[in-house]
């Protein structure tokens, strides 16, 4: 196993994509390929020497147009554990504060020799636009309210590891569904893997059209709670309250917050997830977040393995593309130190 992960990644028939832009486009087989690869890397993370040589000489750039510490750190660490060089580039405020479009920013950075660009942006579709304009691989690390594919993957991975399966489970996504990229990526991954998904929140935050993604809609948390094998508590975004989508944080917490009283009405083996960063006392109370049902910290650990798996698979496909285009398989070997 170690020997294989120390060698440059190769393409497999199971993975032929150069970009990871969203989970809506992936097949269940592709999702399972990532989860299986993550198993390998979870093992690497448990060693004392947490590093393999797979991506030696590759460059991974984190291009973040939105503040993030957790996701960016997770991608950086994932890349380093694969021996890639990493660069973080965070654009605070407007991407055009110096008059440059975000595409130009990305192209300039790519010209420095980037293999994989990890992009977070507040505009849905921004990573898709970059994938069209750049020749490096693009990973969507969250685009507005659209998708956050590695979060969706790490959530299903966490469920699979805790429950032994995903198919047949009933998963509740609780909170602001309308504006949540985590909700969308979770819905795509969970439905493809055969879970039953119930989305639950106030009607101002749950668009009725979401049924067409194959989920059920509920507005009363207490009604659905006893059926749930997994509860995923989406982060409350405070600016939604200012826009009048719910009256107060206090009322939100009363209706949709997970506290120990609610936990008693849930299944004995209910699994609690939260994509974080969590607002303690709002969507989840401290005793639940830190209690035995909570998988919040496992999500973070698993996220690292998922991101290593994604980087590895994308770089493997890049090598294959390069070999195909140059028709010179010798080159790949020459690149290996």
């Amino acid at each position: 196993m170690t020997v294989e992960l120390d060698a440059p990644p190769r393409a497999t028939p199971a993975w032929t994509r150069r970009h990871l832009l969203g989970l809506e486009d992936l097949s269940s087989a592709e999702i399972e390929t990532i989860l299986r690869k993550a198993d390998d890397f979870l093992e690497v993370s448990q060693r004392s020497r947490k590093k393999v040589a797979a991506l030696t000489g590759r460059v991974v750039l984190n291009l973040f147009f939105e503040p993030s510490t957790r996701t960016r750190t997770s991608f950086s660490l994932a890349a380093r554990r694969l021996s890639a060089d990493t660069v973080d580039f965070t654009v605070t405020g407007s991407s055009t504060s110096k008059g440059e479009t975000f595409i130009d920013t990305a192209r300039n950075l790519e010209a420095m020799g980037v293999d994989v660009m990890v992009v977070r942006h507040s505009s849905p579709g921004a990573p898709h636009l970059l994938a069209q304009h750049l020749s490096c691989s693009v990973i969507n690390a969250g685009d507005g309210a659209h998708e956050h594919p590695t979060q969706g993957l790490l959530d299903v991975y966490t469920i699979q590891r805790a429950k032994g399966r995903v198919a047949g489970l009933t998963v509740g996504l609780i909170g602001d569904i309308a504006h949540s990229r985590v909700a969308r990526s979770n819905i795509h991954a969970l439905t493809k893997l055969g879970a039953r998904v119930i989305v639950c929140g106030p009607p101002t935050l749950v668009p009725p059209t979401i049924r067409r993604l194959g989920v059920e809609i509920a507005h009363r948390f207490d009604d659905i709670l006893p059926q749930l094998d997994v509860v995923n508590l989406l982060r409350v975004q405070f600016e939604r309250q200012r826009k009048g989508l719910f009256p107060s944080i206090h009322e939100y917490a009363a209706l949709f917050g997970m506290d120990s009283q609610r936990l008693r009405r849930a299944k004995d083996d209910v699994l609690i997830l939260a994509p974080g960063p969590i607002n303690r006392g709002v969507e989840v109370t401290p005793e639940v977040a830190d209690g035995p049902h909570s998988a919040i910290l496992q999500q973070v650990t698993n996220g690292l393995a998922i991101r290593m798996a994604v980087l590895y698979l994308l770089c493997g496909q890049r090598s294959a593309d390069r070999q195909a285009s140059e028709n010179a398989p010798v080159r790949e070997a020459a690149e290996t130190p």
Partner: protein
Amino acid sequence: MKTLLLTNGRVIDPSQNIDAVTDLWIRGDTVLGIGPQPNLIPDRVINVSGLIVCPGLIDMHVHLREPGREEDETIATGTAAALAGGVTSVACMPNTEPAIDSQAQAEFVYLQAERAGNANVFPIGAITKGRRGEELAEIGGLVEGGAVAFTDDGSPVVSAEIMRRALEYCKMFDRVVMDHCEDLDLARGGVMNEGFESMRLGLPGMPAAAEEIMVNRDIILAELTEGRLHILHTSTAGSVDLIRRARKRGVRVTTEACPHHFTLTDECLRSFDSNFKMSPPLRTQRDVEAIIEGLKDGTIEVIATDHAPHAPEKKTRELDQAPNGVIGLETLLPICIRSLIEPGHLTWPQLIEKLTINPARILGIDRGTLKPGADADVTVIDPNLEWVIDPTQFKSKSRNCPFAGWKVRGRAVLVLVSGQIRYQYPENPALS
């Protein structure tokens, strides 16, 4: 004066109920007549057999961007695009910088159009000073300067009181008031139509209700004032229904549809391509069908492009930050053929009517007809010519076209303005 004969074409002139293979005679800058003229010897004969000959097309909803945003379009480039699309007259919107809200501004448009020497341009004046929606512009002065209609297009008239007074005041000049119907509160922040597609893409939506609420308000005000109302770029099934019912009970309301609204749906936004972003936005298949139904039953009397150029550096951006609007002059005909003629929704005379005499009537301009003595604005269409839409070849200064790469059929091959040949295709003349 020289005499020109366009012989053997299918002459379609809905203003006279003509649809026949015959001759069109032009003397100098006016139409002499339709049909054989045994006693006349033409100075020049152009054989147009197999082609359609009709009054020059009129596009009553065009943004020429001049003055103020010449990086997007100028009156010269916009009118060159018009000619290439077979359009001999455009009415241009007043959302320029500064807005066309005074007599001098209107006269400037005529001056620039004359300098360009392409298509005719009829300026539409702003309803309110600076398009700020606060107080009426000098509508009398604008009429004096040649403004043919009034609108704050780009923005709705938010105040019902101002809209009411505009409808009343314009009656004095028998001019139509046009509104961009959008409830700004409901549509705020919206990037596309609100529905399943906006939900799955995570993009903020503009509900159909945002349009329909204001369409309904304007109809009620037109009823109150007995003024003349024209609803710009109707895009929803609900709007079509409201307008249909209002017309039935005698309200003086007309409307127009844009080719993109009866051809494309909000599914196009899955590409995150800003060339599918405009206001009102692309709606659903149900709305597309309702607009086609409205075109068929006459509720929608006019087809207009809402040609809205934006320079590539502005449009090639994150979808939610790119400006609204697409260009349409150079794709008007083939898209109408593909969406309306080929499926059998409209006949050629019905289509030509919506592109000639109907907009001329609404604007009160003396165009859109081939009656003897009329200005000889003529468009000759090859309905079967196949071509591929390539925005890099456009006369327009901008490239924000949602139909790039489409293989289409039909285009204008000869365009006359006041008896002069102003455009032919291919551009190295083979016809004459």
